[in-house]
């Protein structure tokens, strides 16, 4: 028996090792949501991100001049917008007082810098320099001045990994700002698309797409992109709505984390609804 095993190992050891490692890979693929695996991941990327930050900062200094120019332009645009919004804000505040509404416009934002990124076209992620110690939690939206960048996926003490819009594992409920129609936005590996949209629904080229209030991940409207193409499905009943994102996730450097996670009370209510007999 030992001889047979020895013969087998001597002649096929490469294949044996390959099969064992492939099986381990498959097992790990099924264990991605395991808390222990998540913990190992948090420790690994947290430790590594410390080193990445130093190198990224070193190379990033060369881009500061270009970035400053862009920021000055954005600053000027924002100043004009603020003036207009201030007028509207005063009026809005008065109207809210009259109607007895609560003010819900104050949202906590945490500024962060991207310290590393993967250029995977299917599983694009960014690592940012804010983590649990700064109050960052999985599920929080990541955005910049143009719109949504992604959603926090994993956190360590000082760093967090966010899945960007160009990650096939990120699925968002969005809505058409003009027609108020909801849909599911995914990254199909090639472009951002709203899937399974009945042909009768009102979508037009150029419509702004924002995150929907019914989303279980991002419950406030954040700009995502604009409709660029309406593609008919092969079945003939549905359309796929192609969306051009406002943010170029491959070049984004400075982001804000919106410290907002879905209300537990709302989640519980939804769960209760499904639990009803």
């Amino acid at each position, binding site marked *: 028996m030992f001889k047979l095993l020895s013969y087998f190992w001597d002649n096929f*050891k*490469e294949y044996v*090792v*390959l099969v064992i*490692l*492939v099986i*381990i*890979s*498959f*097992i*790990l*693929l*099924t*264990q*991605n949501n395991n808390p222990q*695996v998540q913990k*190992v*991941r948090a420790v*690994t*990327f947290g430790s*590594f991100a410390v*080193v*990445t930050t130093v*190198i*990224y900062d070193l*190379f990033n200094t060369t881009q500061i001049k270009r970035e400053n120019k862009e920021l000055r332009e954005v600053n000027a645009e924002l100043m004009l917008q603020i003036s207009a919004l201030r007028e509207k804000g005063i009026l809005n505040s008065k109207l809210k007082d009259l109607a007895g509404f609560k003010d819900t416009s104050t949202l906590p934002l945490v500024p962060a810098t991207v310290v*590393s*990124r*993967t*250029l*995977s*076209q*299917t*599983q694009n*992620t960014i*690592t940012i320099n804010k983590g649990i110690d700064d109050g960052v939690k999985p599920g929080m939206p990541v955005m910049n001045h143009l719109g949504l960048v992604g959603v926090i*996926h*994993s956190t360590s003490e000082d760093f967090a*990994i966010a*899945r960007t819009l160009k990650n*096939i*594992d990120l699925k968002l409920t969005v809505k058409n700002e003009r027609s108020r129609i909801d849909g599911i936005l*995914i990254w*199909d*590996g*090639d*472009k951002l698309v709203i899937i399974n949209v009945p042909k009768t629904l009102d979508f037009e080229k150029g419509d702004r797409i924002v995150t929907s209030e019914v989303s279980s991940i991002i419950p406030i409207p954040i700009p995502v992109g604009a409709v660029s193409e309406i593609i008919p*499905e*092969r079945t003939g009943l549905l359309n*796929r709505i192609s969306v051009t994102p406002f943010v170029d996730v*491959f070049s984004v450097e400075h982001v804000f984390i919106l410290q907002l996670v879905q209300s537990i009370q709302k989640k519980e209510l939804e769960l209760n609804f499904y639990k009803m007999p």
Partner: protein
Amino acid sequence: MKLKYFIPPIILIPVILVQLTIIPLISIEEVAPDLLLIALVYFSIAYGQLYGTTIGAFYGLAFDLITGSLIGSNMLAKTVAGFTAGYFSADTRRDKYLYTYAFCLVVLLCSIINSLIFSFFSVIDFNTNFIVVLFNHSILPSIYTTIFSILVVIVPHRRSYI
């Protein structure tokens, strides 16, 4: 245990650092070379198929953990890529494939295999044009990786003239 077998795990850290920080700066239209794969092919040819397969799994798992990718997807892709590269590692073939431009062809082959497996486990939506997806996700990054791998062939040659 020979000391040289410890070099690939040690090299992993600087390679991933460069891949995550510097390589994005030289990406063209979101297509970037895969330094990890070039290192893997090199070590697979240099140290043999068994070692290449094992180090492929190690490199892939480490990359999955560090970058937040689906754990196991890069591990599987790089294990098979390392195994494939190992076929070019026999004693008689090693010099032929390690320091000649044939190395770039091995990198091209392994890169396509690596990208195809990784893309498959990324669950690409097959409603899109499969040929376009194949081209964007496998062929283009593989070609860029292959061009980058020329450095591995050129640098040791120059060193030998000194």
